[in-house]
């Protein structure tokens, strides 16, 4: 299992980059979500996977029994998921709003703020 995860993370990252670079709004949303997922998965794996051992200290012990899973990455992951979720939902609403006022789904139409307007 641990052997496959790095490849999954790599595939997720590259797929998300491809989708973000695409012109269509919907693919942008998908890309952002995938990129968030890839990062979260990376954070999860980085603490080394230990199965079946939680870091809970029993009533008669003073330290947790080895081997136990590192709880810190799990805590980080939880925070990162919540924050990522908030930003993603904001992005989706924003993109919907952009679609409503521009009437287009093509990111190539979004180039007016960069232009130097000569006869402004």
């Amino acid at each position, binding site marked *: 299992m641990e052997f496959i995860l790095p490849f999954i993370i790599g595939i997720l990252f590259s797929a998300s980059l491809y989708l973000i670079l695409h012109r269509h709004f919907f693919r942008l949303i998908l890309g952002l979500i995938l990129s968030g997922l890839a990062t979260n998965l990376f954070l999860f794996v*980085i603490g080394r996977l230990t199965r079946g051992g939680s870091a809970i200290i029993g009533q008669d012990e003073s330290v947790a029994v080895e081997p136990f899973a590192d709880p810190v990455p799990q805590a980080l992951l939880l925070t990162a998921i919540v924050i990522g979720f908030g930003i993603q939902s904001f992005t989706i609403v*924003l993109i919907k709003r952009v679609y409503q006022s521009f009437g287009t789904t093509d990111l190539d139409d979004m180039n007016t703020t960069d232009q130097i307007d000569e006869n402004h």
Partner: protein
Amino acid sequence: MNHLLIMLPILIPLYGAILSLFFWRSVRVQQFIGILAQVCLLVATFLLLFDINENGIRTTQIGSWPAPFGITLVADLFSAMMVITSSITGTAIYLFSIKGLDKARQSFGYYPVLLILQLGVSGACLTGDLFNLFVWFEVLLICCFVLIALGGTKPQLEGAIKYVTINFLATNFLLTGIGVVYGTLGSLNLAELAVLVRMPVAHPALITMAGMFFLIAFGIKAAIFPLFFWLPASYHTPPIAISAFIAGIITKVGMYALIRLFTLIFVTDQDLTIPLFTVLAGFTMVIGVLGAASQNDFRKILSFHIVSQIGYMLMGLALFTPLAIAGSIYFIIHNILVKTNLFLISGVVARRHGTFALKKLGGIYLQQPLLSVLFFISAFSLAGIPPLSGFWGKFMLARAGFEIDSFAIVLVSLAVSLMTLFSMTKIWNEVFWKKKPDVDPLSEVMTQQQQRDLRLLHLPVVLMTGFILFVGLYAEPVVAMAQLAAEQLLNSELYINAVLKR
């Protein structure tokens, strides 16, 4: 009491924001709470600075969990100077917003969001924990997203979509970097990390790799050379009160994080980082100033100059001597004040004449001589004319560069100063000096109410110019403090001992 003093820059905006959310329907009360909170914050940050100046680095442990396990808040001189500058800016922005922002936006949660943005800035500057730093950055970024999109005009939405996308990517880079650091070193506390990287580690290359992740993440947030394109595309779109605050503060907080991390933790591979920073700093300066020269819109010129000025701050980090870091710190303080003030002035001009286009503006020196003088001071300060504030920062950086024979980067920085002066004189000529083209007599007429509002808008500009003049003309204590702050940054032992209480 001392622990409370570190918490206050975080608690005041937090409680202010919560309190003003209770008065959602009454903009007046929100304005009052906002200004009260900003003034309290200003007092608290000054008290914090005096305290640190006397007693050295201050720390507090949230929830009393001892240092490497819980979240630590650390206030050294650099972070205290950052929060003071951000609270000065915040106060000016609040004063400006009351008359300078339309009622619709004000009544849609503008004041609470601005306070939470201030909360994020304070938190990012005071935290001593890597993951906590990420969380504070998210707090301030999501406020920026909301503020840029607030009102939902077409250019704003377009700017927001670019801003959100690129910053979301930066966030993911940051998280990946944090993951690599935790995976290799097994800690997130900055002080403990600083101890761990200085001991022989199994994979030094992995730490450098993590450093590069942080460089990309904060490089995007600070708008460093190949990663700055979102900035001129989005910063000029929201109303001026919002873009002044965001343009003044946010990129510099990214720069703060870079300086903090690359003086404390990622110092192990300086054969790579120092040449890299030198090249990036040079390109950031040059590209930014050239971009500004090609623009002909008041706000867009100023936006591109943010990029150019970031190069100077990075230059201090690239030279990596005590004097250079002190120069960077001084430059950050000076730049936050000056840049915000220039944006505010462009807002006052646009309020009177309804446009930011240089071609349509003109003759303001004749109509508003006071405003012209205020612009003159700020613009020359930005370009670095002695004895104004920009000069001292550039002087320290250039001298530090000459001391270690880095002539190329110093020459580039001096040439860029000259180009900055060119852009500022361009604005001066077009907006203030030349005759106003095709004057429409009807548009020149103002009611008494409008005239009173316009006069009130000058108040924050005068306030900021006062601080700019103070930092420039009475530079000695500020420079001395920047040098002390640089010493604290470069002697990591001080930071480590203060946090881990060894």
